[in-house]
């Protein structure tokens, strides 16, 4: 019988090979509730692959994934999302022909288990959560704009907002500040982190900007060649010679 690890998200021996390339190399990992983990690593280190396996987008060659006390290995993104794991993407995944509010209403319809062929979306769904999330992520002013018309920073916020409406226990954000100007990065992270704190959501975020990592992470994991090469408090990990050599640079 499998022993379920006590972490909110845990993996055991997680491996994935694409032909000769090892994208995940026997990863044993535990994330505790309440942590704010930053993941760093060079391009191709396997950060996004790890996220994609944990969220059901791709299947591992071997190993197990546990979330919130249950094994979710090989389950679909839909099933894992319903268990309370939300995610955002490096390239925001939006419904570009829907308004910002409609995107969130659709998310709310999923969590409220509302379906139907007759009642209009905005009448069928309890919109309190939607409006609160719009406010929280400073998107209220764009509520009636098409999501496809938003600038990149707001697209990133909406991408997270859609997952946040689902009231997740864990939010995984893949490069939330990529494609955003350096001036806007901190402002964006402030909004995101405040929202996650207010909703008491544990989070993982992949990030390349070390200043952002220092400021917002409570824990840091450095990925090198499909493995967690260093894991711990951000300042300690950033002093690790292997991390300095392979991730941060001299």
């Amino acid at each position, binding site marked *: 019988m499998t022993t379920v690890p006590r972490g909110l998200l845990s993996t055991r021996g997680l491996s994935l090979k694409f032909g000769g390339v090892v994208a995940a190399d026997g990863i044993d990992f535990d994330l505790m509730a309440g942590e704010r983990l930053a993941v760093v690593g060079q391009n191709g280190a396997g950060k996004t692959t790890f996220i994609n396996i944990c*969220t059901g987008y791709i299947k591992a060659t071997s190993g197990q994934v546990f979330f919130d006390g249950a094994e979710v290995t090989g389950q*679909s*993104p*839909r099933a894992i*999302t*319903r268990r309370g794991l*939300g*995610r955002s993407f490096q390239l925001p*995944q*939006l*419904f*570009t*022909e*829907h308004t910002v509010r*409609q995107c969130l*209403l*659709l*998310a709310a*319809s*999923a*969590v409220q288990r*509302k*379906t*139907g*062929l*007759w*009642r*209009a*979306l905005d009448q*069928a*769904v309890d919109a309190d959560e939607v409006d609160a999330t719009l406010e929280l992520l400073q998107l209220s002013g764009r509520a009636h704009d098409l999501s*496809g018309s938003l600038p990149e920073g707001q697209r990133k916020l909406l991408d997270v907002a*859609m*997952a946040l409406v*689902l009231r997740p226990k864990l939010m995984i954000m893949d490069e939330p500040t990529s494609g955003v100007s350096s001036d806007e990065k901190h402002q964006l992270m402030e909004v995101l982190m405040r929202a996650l704190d207010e909703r008491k959501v544990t989070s993982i975020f992949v990030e390349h900007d070390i200043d952002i990592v220092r400021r917002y992470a409570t824990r840091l994991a450095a990925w090198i060649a499909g493995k967690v090469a260093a894991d711990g408090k951000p300042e300690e990990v950033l002093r690790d010679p292997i991390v300095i050599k392979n991730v941060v640079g001299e």
Partner: protein
Amino acid sequence: MGSPRLRLLVVALLGLVLALTLSLPWLKTPVLLALSNGLAVLGVIVLIRAGQVSFGHAMFACLAGYGVTFMARAWHLDALLLVALGTAGAALFGALIGVFMVRYRGIFFGMLNLAFSMVLFSMLGKFGGLTGGTDGLRFDRPTIGFVHLEREGFETALLFLALALAVLAGLAVQRYFTSVNGQALAAIKTNETRLEYLGISAKRVFWGGYVLSAAMCGLGGSLFALAQGLVTPEMGYWVRSGEVVFIAILGGAGHAVGAFIGAFVFEFVKLYAAALLTGAWQLALGLVLIVMVFVAPTGIFGLMETHLRAKAAPR
């Protein structure tokens, strides 16, 4: 387009159709055919909402038409019941075929529908003993509302029924578009991945849309069969499916009204082109479509919508 303006447009179009048809009785048949085509186009528009185009949806009109014919010949049912059962039958086939279809997108979806429709077309031609082969099957004029009417009265009653069903179906489809499932269907077009990451099954949503589209095509096919008193395998031929897509583009896939505007324009361009350019009426239709794609890619309804919006905008 604002709702009051649209309602006014629909009422004006309905009034125009009724006035013309009642004053010029020869128009009844082309109007009936346009309405039944419009209902089938409505079905295709549902799929276009999800960004998918079917090149085989005439099969559902054909299945419903044959269903109506078999039931009319065997049990002499009333026309209202025949329409209801024909539509339900098409929806049932849609539910079954849809189980396979929802796994595919884009060209594979379009061509798989076409393949299914060609299987049906071949079977209807080959099993002549049952289906009448390529000559098709005729059936006697049924009662309508349990009243037996002569040909002219039957056509008039059928016309009113078709108009009422067109309005109801148009309203229902528009309502569906604004519903939770309708909005989720539209989300399939732009981001199926995100839909799954919201915990919504894109396949289930698409299956629902597919069944609705089959039902609309079935409704159109049932009326078509009753209007003609005859069904042939041609009803399900791939060219017919292409015509339905053609009409959707012509009328505009953005709104249910576009389906009927497109169907009327198509029917009358075909009618006059066939009279004036015998043997080359497809040329006229082709030219109309080329012009539409260049001038108004959102179709006739999209063009009207843009025009009216510009007029309503503050100066």
